[in-house]
């Protein structure tokens, strides 16, 4: 096995036994990126010198007896999370030149655990999208079929992981942006409970929905990453002050008696038959493992999409007001006055989808429409949350497909925004309710990965991870890798 193919847990084992060094591991990952990334295009910015320096320090630290949870492990970071001194573009021309003067809290925590950062990954601009086609720079390819999208908005992170261009990755999830690309790229991705992980240093899209989430090659790695990034943070006043359990302790292949609900709304007509079949097979595996499966209903599921596409753009329109060409980023030079300067800066700096959502959000919040749109949506949000509260009185977890289809072709949905929004229909509800959810591979349709989504109540990550682990250990999907076209190292 090549070093870059290792999982985090296996790498830590070899590092601790001194069979490999962190420097070798990081170098192998960097070489892999050179080999593969011309075809995958997962990375926007690479930080090879810093990464090797971090790896070297990790080797020295380990030799001196230190033992951080991720000491020497090379990771990829979505480019809307701030790494001090490294460009953070958010996939946008308006921040093309922005270099943050500070680390996001999750980065500080990962550094403390000894992690190494390989670079920043591609995303839909400002995390708005489901395919990474909205990046102002280029589209990332799905490693399973490079004519297809990796999903979005954390498409770069998911693709990097699937192509072994990192051992683990961070993404952000506002309406499914970690889970859906994880599903389309055949990796594990999780949206923690809202408030579990600090948003300080995550460039804000929709403040009541955004969460940073881990992507990994398997469930155990995902649990470990979650341990390191979870914490109460006084710099994020929406972060919860609750103890962080050791999520890896939840990992047992034993799920006898686990109460699993299957919402019938997640198998509606819009979900591809092949996807439904894979998920039904997965549910059968859970049954064979001793779980108690019951069909249930989340009756307000069909309202999640319009609810989300009023709330998220409304919050985004407020969060993106700061991009005015004054404090950072692109600034229109030739405008005759300050108002024109604002308009031109934002016209030239933002892409179409971002503009569309700012417009939608501004409208939904404007005088005369605030009650009819924004407040109405927030009330429906309550109903959606109540559906989950009721369900979790009866069930430990809920399962269904993560995405209604496998990866679609690049360009297939760009001309119809509503069609693109439908990619998220199965992941929006969990974001609106603030609960936790994870996607892991459960099969293939025509060689393209299918994701099983497991949802749990707020701070129910352990139930979700336990279910995921048991399923994973009883199946072999996580061992499959795409065949990548490689450039030779010159």
């Amino acid at each position, binding site marked *: 096995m090549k070093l870059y193919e290792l999982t985090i847990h296996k790498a830590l084992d070899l590092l601790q036994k001194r069979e490999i060094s962190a420097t070798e591991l990081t170098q192998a990952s960097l070489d892999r990126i050179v080999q593969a990334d011309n075809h995958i295009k997962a990375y926007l910015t690479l930080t090879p010198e810093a990464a090797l320096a971090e790896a070297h320090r990790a080797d020295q630290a380990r030799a001196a007896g230190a033992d951080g949870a991720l000491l020497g492990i090379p990771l990829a970071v979505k480019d809307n999370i701030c790494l001090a001194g490294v460009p953070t573009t958010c996939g946008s021309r308006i921040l093309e030149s922005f270099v943050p003067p500070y680390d996001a809290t999750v980065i500080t925590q990962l550094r403390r655990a000894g992690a190494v950062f390989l670079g920043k990954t591609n995303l839909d601009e400002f995390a708005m999208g489901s395919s990474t086609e909205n990046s102002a720079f280029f589209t990332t390819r799905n490693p399973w079929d490079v004519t297809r999208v990796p999903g979005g908005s954390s498409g770069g992170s998911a693709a990097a992981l699937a192509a072994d261009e990192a051992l683990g990755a961070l993404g952000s999830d506002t309406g499914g942006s970690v889970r859906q690309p994880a599903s389309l790229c055949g990796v594990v991705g999780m949206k923690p409970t809202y408030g579990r992980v600090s948003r300080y240093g995550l460039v804000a899209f929709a403040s*009541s929905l955004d969460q940073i989430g881990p992507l990994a090659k398997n469930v155990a790695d995902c649990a470990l990453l979650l341990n390191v990034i979870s914490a109460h943070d006084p710099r994020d006043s929406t972060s919860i002050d609750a103890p962080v359990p050791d999520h890896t302790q939840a990992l047992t292949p034993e799920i006898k008696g686990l109460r699993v609900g299957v919402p019938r709304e997640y198998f509606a007509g819009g979900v591809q038959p092949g996807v439904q079949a894979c998920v039904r097979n997965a549910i059968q595996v859970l049954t064979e493992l001793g779980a108690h499966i019951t069909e249930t209903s989340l009756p307000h599921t069909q309202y999640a*999409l319009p609810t989300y596409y009023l709330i998220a753009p409304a919050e985004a329109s407020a969060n993106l007001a700061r991009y005015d060409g004054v404090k*950072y980023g692109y600034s229109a030079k030739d405008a005759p006055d300050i*108002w*024109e300067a604002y308009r031109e800066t*934002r016209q030239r700096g933002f892409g179409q989808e971002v503009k569309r959502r700012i417009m939608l959000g*501004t409208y939904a919040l404007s005088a005369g429409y605030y009650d009819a749109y924004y407040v109405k949506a927030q009330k429906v949000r309550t109903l959606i949350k109540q559906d989950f509260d009721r369900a979790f009185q009866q069930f430990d977890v809920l399962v269904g497909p993560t995405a209604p289809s496998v990866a679609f072709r690049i360009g297939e949905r760009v001309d119809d925004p*509503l069609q693109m929004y439908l990619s998220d229909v199965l992941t929006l509800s969990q974001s609106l309710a603030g609960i936790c959810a994870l996607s892991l591979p459960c099969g293939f349709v025509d060689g393209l990965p299918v994701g099983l989504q497991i949802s749990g109540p707020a701070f129910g990550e352990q139930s979700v991870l336990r279910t995921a682990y048991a399923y994973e250990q009883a199946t072999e999907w996580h061992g499959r890798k795409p065949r990548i076209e490689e450039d030779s190292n010159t």
Partner: protein
Amino acid sequence: MAVLQAHAQSAGRGEGTVPLTRQEVKHIADLAKLGLSDKDISLFAEQLSAILEYAAILEQLDTSAISPTATVVPLRNIMRADEAGPSLTQNDALANAPRAADGYFQVRAILE
């Protein structure tokens, strides 16, 4: 604007919708300080109308007895003592400024 209110209501009852006009799109763009080309004004009028028409499905739900969920966490008004602590240096804060002078962000005049 009353025309748009009617649009929101009638869409829910399936009576046909009133699309956003170019004038309304320009007004929203102005609120958002977002310059739009002529082509984009027309495109957004069409696309936003379609999205809003779809969003009118929420009218089907009786939410008269429901409180809005602004945030899912049971937290309100997180406070801290009003004490100065470490923060960005002036240089760091200005490092990305497109225009800076004498330790300030430089902006265009807002008064005649």
